[in-house]
């Protein structure tokens, strides 16, 4: 059974996630997974992937979507407010400080180098998470076909990620509904 989280911890985790998200919403997945789905097990692996998928097909910043979603799952409406505030506040504070004190930030190379260094770590972590999630998915014709099709859609056709998700989900409905019907009956 998954553990229940309290409001302060929820805020803390998402503030932390907001602080370390460099390079867009997907960059926060490794830390989010570690904080919520791995060590403490507030949410299960499958739930985590569902949240990720739904956040991608719903409009708005993925980070905000995921925070609202997980906050709601954990602690209802209050949880969604707390998690969203948590993930947004670090950006707000950092950008405000930059706007007020460092108007010529492009010249501030130490900070840029620091962020570039972090980016190399983020790439390593996303590679790690990708391998981790891949290991947990069954290797069969269905999964492999969708993976290859998705890669073609993303890299060659350059389809928007929402459509890539909808195609995968649509194929799932087409070929898997019967299987799940049999399981539940």
């Amino acid at each position: 059974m998954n553990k229940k989280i309290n409001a302060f911890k929820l805020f803390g985790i998402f503030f932390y996630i907001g602080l370390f998200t460099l390079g867009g919403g997907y960059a926060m997945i490794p830390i989010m997974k570690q904080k919520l789905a791995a060590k403490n097990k507030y949410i299960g692996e499958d739930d985590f992937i569902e949240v990720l998928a739904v956040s991608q097909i719903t409009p708005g910043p993925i980070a905000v979507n995921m925070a609202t979603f997980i906050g709601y799952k954990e602690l209802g409406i209050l949880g969604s407010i707390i998690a969203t505030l948590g993930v947004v506040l670090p950006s707000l504070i950092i950008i405000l400080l930059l706007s007020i004190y460092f108007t010529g930030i492009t010249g501030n190379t130490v900070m840029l180098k620091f962020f570039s260094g972090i980016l190399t770590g983020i790439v390593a972590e996303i590679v790690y998470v990708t391998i981790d999630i891949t290991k947990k998915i069954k290797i069969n014709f269905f999964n492999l076909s969708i993976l290859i099709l998705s890669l073609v859609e993303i890299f060659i056709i350059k389809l928007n990620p929402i459509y890539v998700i909808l195609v995968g989900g649509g194929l799932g409905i087409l070929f898997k509904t019967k299987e799940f019907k049999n399981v539940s009956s």
Partner: protein
Amino acid sequence: MFLLKVYLEFFKIGAFTFGGGQAMIPILQRELVTNLHWITTENFLHFVSIAEITPGPISVNIATFIGYSIHGVLGAIVSTAGVASPSFILILLVATAMKKLQAHPVYRAFMAGIKPVIIALLISTIYIIASRGFHNNILPYIFSIIAFIVLIKFRLNASLLLLIMGAVGIFLL
């Protein structure tokens, strides 16, 4: 009243951008630079370049930047709230609906089809970050590989690794 206009403008942008921050950039540019003249193209591109390398969701960063530049701290808070509001409302609706759907075979089949797609999207994220953030320089790639090895060998805490790589970046990049 101007603040309400700022809020609504960013609300609209939050509501109509699918697929994360990168997708938001052209829409922001058209609305704020071309249609409303709230900021210049030059400033806009400057903000985008900083928003991409500072922590936090890119779209939230851009909203905060632009909000501040048009109406100070209050403008920044209002624009950030605006860009985050639609997600917040929509996700609440979706999450409530999902609670009821979760056991349905069609829903579970949809989710089964999505799992491999997530792997593809993660692979594309690696590609996007490396190709945009590493500036065709070989050194960051080498650091990434070393970071990856350290990660699997020592099971390092994710954020500790980022701080270490940040420090490495200051001295070596």
